[in-house]
Each structure stands twice: as C-alpha cells, then as structure tokens.
C-alpha cells in the first residue's frame, strides 16, 4: 500500500523532503512505521519516543493499523509562538 509521509522542521531536514510517498506492507502499524523510519535516520531515532503520528490530521495511537492512501504526519514537540 502507498502512504504519504509529512515531515517538519528537524525531520524534514533529516529526510531531505517535507512530503514523501512510500510503499508499506499492508497491516503496518504506526509503531512499525516509526521503527522503520528510526532505522533509516539517526535524527528520527533520537526523536522516536516523542514523535506523535497524525493520520489525515488526527493524532492516532501507535498501535493503529495504517491504510492505503493515509496521509501520515510526524509531529515532534511544537515550538510556535
């Protein structure tokens, strides 16, 4: 299945892009995606305990099973204001 990943700030720079499409095994959970990304990026690995996943603009539990077409944002602690 194909999902869209959105990265911001430190993670956007780590992955070199704000939006990427990736193919995942059907049935992949949020936590499995996090581990996959952590294995590919030291910066992500350092933030993996604090990153929250949002699917289609709503936060989801890491146990949630992802679906084809999901728009998945990696939300690190925010720093607006």
């Amino acid at each position: 299945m194909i999902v869209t990943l959105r990265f911001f700030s430190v993670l956007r720079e780590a992955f070199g892009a704000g939006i990427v499409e990736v193919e995942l095994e059907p049935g992949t959970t949020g936590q499995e995606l996090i581990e996959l990304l952590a294995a590919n990026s030291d910066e992500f690995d350092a933030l993996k305990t604090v990153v929250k996943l949002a699917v289609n603009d709503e936060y989801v539990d890491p146990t949630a099973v992802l679906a084809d077409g999901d728009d998945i944002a990696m939300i690190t602690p925010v720093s607006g204001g």
Partner: protein
Amino acid sequence: MKTDWIDITAEPLDAGEVHNFLYRSEGGGVCVFAGTTRRITGNKSTEYLSYESHISMALKEMQALSNKAREQWPLLRTVLLHRIGDVKVGQPSVLIGVASAHRSPAFDAARFLIDELKKSVQIWKQEHYSNQTTEWVQTEWPDEPAEGT
C-alpha cells in the same frame, strides 16, 4: 458573521485590523497579545525566526483552543493568527486577541490561548543567528497528554 478569526499566514500581521475586529458594541474589554522575535536569548543573537507548520492540523487545533476558551469565559470574539516563514527581530509572529464584556475574562482568556498555543499547535521555529548558524528550537511535550493520544 464569523466570531473567530483564525489564520496561519506568510503575510505580516496587522494589529490594527485585529483591534477593529475585536471592538464590539457588546464588549468592554479587549486584550491582545503579540509575540515578537527577540534579539537575545541566552548568549545568542537572533536575526530572524523561521516558522513552519502542519497548517491543516494547526488551524484545527487553534479552533479547538478558541472553543475551549469560549467554554471557560464569556467571549464575544477571538483571534489567533500565526505567521509562517521568516519573522525578523522586533516583528510579531503571533497575535492573540479576545473581546469580552469585562476586562478580567479578556486577560484570562488571552493568557490561556497563548499558553496553550505554545504547547499544542503544530508550528515549529528555527533560530537564524547573527553568526549565520541555525537551530530548530527544541522543546518537550507538556506533561498533560494532548487530545487523541
């Protein structure tokens, strides 16, 4: 008539327009907070801040904060505006405003909105220092869990 003005924009923020939006015949107290880029933090000198956002989530979260404020205080209007892109020293990156019949809820709600915005709205800032280096501002999630987690 919309009573919440919520936006994320790359344009400069116009405080005069915000005040006009908040001046209502039913209101007596208007409180506006502006967060501006500060030159000095610790021993570093900042030239500008660069903001980015997950805009669709951030707008929903800002609306949720406005709704929460309206549950707690009798507010006539609320404003939550945040810039993205580069914001130079001395310029506002965020404008928060509320109108109420009296001043006490106006102050309390404006304080609530800026405090909560900094904790939960999906915006990130990068320092651009005078020595040409840059740094994403590192924060932690607040202790209380955010909605949905």
